[in-house]
C-alpha cells in the first residue's frame, strides 16, 4: 500500500524526467545524428525561444491568469529594434527602448485584469490582436533588415563556446526559480492563484502582484523578440505568431493548473524540454509537420491526464 503510494509520488515528481530520458534513449538508438553536439546545441537553441516565454507564462498561469499577447510583444520588440537599428541607434539603447515598450504592453494587460477587472483571456486576446496590428502598422507590413553585428550576437553569438540564446534561457530559468521559490513575491503568486480573496485579507497587495506578473511575462517576450530578430537578422511584424500556444503547452505539460495556485517552474522546464526533444526527434525521423502537430496535442492530453490521475489518487 505505502509502496504503491511512494511509486505514485515518484512518478509525479520524476515522470516528466523519465519521459525525457525515454525519448533520449530511444533516439540515440534510432538516429546517428541525435547525440551529436551539433544536434544537441540545435535542440537547446530551439527550446530557448519557447523556454523563456514559458517561464513568464508559468508565473501568469500560477496566478490563475493567461497571457495570449506574448507572441505580439515578440513582434513589436522585433520591429522597434529593427527600425531603431536602421536609423543607426546604438544596439543597447534600441534594446532598452523595446524593453520599455514591452513593459508598457504588460502593464496594460495587468491594469485591465487587476484594476479594471477584465478576464485575463479577454484582456490579453485583445492586446494580442492590437499588438499584432500595431507591429504591422508601425513597419508598414515590411520587415526591417538588421545588419548591426553587435546586436546579432544576441541570437547568433557564442559565449565560452555556448550559444548566447542558451545562456539567456538558463539565466531566465534560474531567475524564475529563485523568484518563485525563495521570495515573498513568489509566495504571493501562488496564494493569489489559490485564493485571491484570502490573499487580500492577509494583506497581500493582490492587484499590484497581478500587474507585475503580466509585466514579467512581457519582459520574457521582449527577450525572445531580441533573440529572434538577432537570429534571423530582421525585425518582422509577423514574428512570434502563435508562440503563446507553445508556452501554454509547456506549462500545462509541466503540471501547472490552469486555475492557478498549483504548479512549478521545474515542471515547466521539463515541459519545454520534452516539447523540444519531441520536435527534434520527429524532424530527424522525417515525420512531417502535420503529424507533429497531432503528436504535440496528444502529448498535452496525456500529460495533463496523468497529472490529474496522480493528484486525484489522494481520496
Amino acid at each position: 500500500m505505502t509502496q504503491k503510494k511512494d511509486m505514485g509520488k515518484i512518478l509525479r515528481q520524476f515522470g516528466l524526467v523519465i519521459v525525457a530520458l525515454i525519448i533520449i534513449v530511444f533516439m540515440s538508438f534510432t538516429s546517428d545524428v541525435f547525440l551529436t553536439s551539433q544536434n544537441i546545441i540545435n535542440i537547446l537553441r530551439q527550446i530557448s525561444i519557447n523556454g523563456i516565454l514559458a517561464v513568464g507564462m508559468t508565473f501568469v498561469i500560477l496566478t490563475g491568469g493567461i497571457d495570449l499577447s506574448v507572441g505580439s510583444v515578440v513582434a513589436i520588440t522585433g520591429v522597434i529594434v529593427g527600425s531603431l537599428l536602421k536609423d543607426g541607434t546604438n544596439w543597447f539603447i534600441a534594446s532598452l527602448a523595446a524593453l520599455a515598450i514591452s513593459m508598457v504592453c504588460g502593464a496594460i494587460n495587468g491594469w485591465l485584469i487587476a484594476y479594471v477587472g477584465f478576464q485575463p483571456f479577454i484582456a490579453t486576446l485583445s492586446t494580442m490582436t492590437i499588438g499584432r496590428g500595431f507591429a504591422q502598422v508601425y513597419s508598414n507590413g515590411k520587415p526591417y533588415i538588421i545588419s548591426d553585428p553587435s546586436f546579432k550576437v544576441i541570437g547568433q553569438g557564442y559565449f565560452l563556446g555556448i550559444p548566447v540564446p542558451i545562456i539567456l534561457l538558463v539565466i531566465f530559468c534560474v531567475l524564475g526559480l529563485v523568484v518563485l521559490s525563495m521570495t515573498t513575491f513568489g509566495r504571493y503568486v501562488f496564494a493569489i492563484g489559490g485564493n485571491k480573496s484570502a490573499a487580500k485579507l492577509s494583506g497581500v497587495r493582490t492587484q499590484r502582484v497581478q500587474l507585475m506578473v503580466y509585466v514579467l511575462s512581457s519582459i520574457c517576450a521582449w527577450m525572445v523578440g531580441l533573440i529572434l530578430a538577432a537570429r534571423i537578422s530582421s525585425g518582422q511584424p509577423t514574428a512570434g505568431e502563435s508562440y503563446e500556444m507553445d508556452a501554454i503547452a509547456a506549462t500545462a505539460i509541466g503540471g501547472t493548473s490552469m486555475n492557478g495556485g498549483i504548479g512549478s517552474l521545474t515542471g515547466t522546464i521539463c515541459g519545454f524540454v520534452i516539447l523540444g526533444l519531441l520536435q527534434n526527434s520527429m524532424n530527424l525521423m522525417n515525420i512531417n509537420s502535420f503529424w507533429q502537430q497531432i503528436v504535440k496535442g496528444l502529448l498535452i492530453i496525456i500529460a495533463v491526464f496523468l497529472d490529474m490521475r496522480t493528484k486525484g489518487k489522494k481520496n
Partner: protein
Amino acid sequence: MAGKYVLEATGIAKSFSGVTVLDGAELCIEPGELHALMGENGAGKSTLMKIIMGIYTKDAGKVVLDGKEVEFKSARDALDAGISMIHQELSPIPEMTVAENVFLGREQKKFKGLPFVDKKELNRKTQELLKEYDLDQFISPTMKMKDLNIAQIQMMEIIKAVSYNSKVIIMDEPTSSLSEKETETLFRIIDSLRKKNVGIIYISHRMEEVFQLADRVSVLRDGQFIGCVKVAEASREQLINMMVGRELEGGYPHNTAKKGDVVLELKDFTRKGVFENVNLKVHAGEILGMAGLVGAGRSEVMKALVGYDPLDSGEIYLEGQKITIKHPNDAVKHHIVMASEDRKELGLVLCRSIKENVSLQNFDKLSKGSFIQKLKERKMAGEYTEKMATKMNGIDDLVSSLSGGNQQKVVLAKCLLSEPKVLIMDEPTRGIDVGAKAAIYNIMVGLANQGIAIIMISSEMPELIGMSDRIIVMSGGQVKGELEGAEAQSQQTIMNLAFGGE
C-alpha cells in the same frame, strides 16, 4: 426483517490509505424521527454519511433501507432510493432560477423525447413547494439563485431535498449559516417532514438545538459507535462525555483579563446601503461581542475596518492615534487582523500548505527584503500551529486535508503570528466540534490576558453571552444598543435589539 427502522446502518468500517476512519459505526433511524448525530470533528460523521449516500464504498458492514440491504454506487442511486442529503457546503448554480435549481437534472420536458424544458410546469411545482412550507412570501420560483441570501439558499437546498419525496433526509449542520428567525422557519419545515414520516439525520454541534429538536441522539467518537440515547432521558453533560470521553466542565471560561485603555475606536463608520454611523470602542483585554441577525452588517463593518471592503466615511483611532486603512496590508501593519467566518472563501488558501498559509500574512517578520527566511518560517509556523494544538502530520500538509476545527486553528495561528493589538473573530466556532470550541474559547481568554482587544462576531447566543464582556447589537446596518453587565446576560434584551427594537 422489515422492522421499525427505515434506515439501518450497522458495523460500518472504512479506512483511507491505512488510516481507520470508521470502525463499527452504527445508525438506526425510525420513520418520522429526528435523529441527531453528534461527535467531535474527525469522529467520522461525514464519512458515515458519505457511505450511506454511496459517495464512498464501505470496507465492511451493511446498510439496510426499508428492510432491504442496499449498496449504492453513487449519490444518484441513493436519491432514487429515497435518501437525500443537504450538505454543509452549499453549491447552488448562481445564474439559474430557483425552480431550475430545485429540479436540476430531472427537468420536466415539454415534449417527450425532446430536450425542451417545460418552464411553466417547473415554476408551478416549485411554487407549490414554497407555499407548502410558507416560503412563498420571500422567494419566488423565477428568482435567480444569486439574488438569494445564504439563509434562503439553505432553505432552497432543503426544499430541493424534500422535493425528492425522500424517506430519509440527512442535514449536515443546517443552521450554521442561519439567524435565529430563519432557524425557526427551518424547524417548522422539519416538523412537517416528521409528520410525513420522513426520518431525518441531523448533524449538529449545537447542543441547544439537539435538545429542542431531536428524538434520539447517536454519538460517534474516533469512528466508533458510542451509543444511542433518547434525548428526553439525556443530559447535556452526559452527551458531552460521550463525545469527548472525558469530563468537561460546562460553560465558558471567564475572561479574567484586566481591561486597559481603549485600543481601537471607530467613529461614524458608513458605507452607503450597507451600514451607517457605526461607532464603537474596544479596550485592551476586552472581548467585545457583536450580536445581530445574519445580514445586520456586522461582518461588513469589520471587513471595511481592515480595508477589505471600501468605506464611504468614518475614522479609525488606534491607541488614540488617527490612522487610515486602505488595504488589509495597512491593517496588518497596524496589528489589526481578522479571522474570517468563511475559511474557504477568505481565510485560507486551501490548495497550499499549512506553513505557507501561516506565513502569508507575516513576511515582514519572516523575510529579509524580498527573500523568505525559510528556517525561521518553518520554526515559527511550527511553533504557532503547535500552540493552537493543530492536529496534523506536519506543516507541509495541505490545508485542504484538515478538518474544519483544525483549519480554524491554522487561521488563528496566522493571525497570532501578526502580534495583533486588535483581533477580529467572525463566527470563531462555526462548524467546529465541542472539544475544539472549548479550546478556542480558552485561546481567546488567553489572548485577552495578553492585552489583546478581541472583537467577536457571533450568531450563537450562549457563546455571545458566555464569552463577551460587552455586547454591541446591530440591526439593519446600525448599532441598536450597547449592553454591559446584567443586560449583556439577557438573551431577551439582545434579541429584542437585534430585531430592531429599542
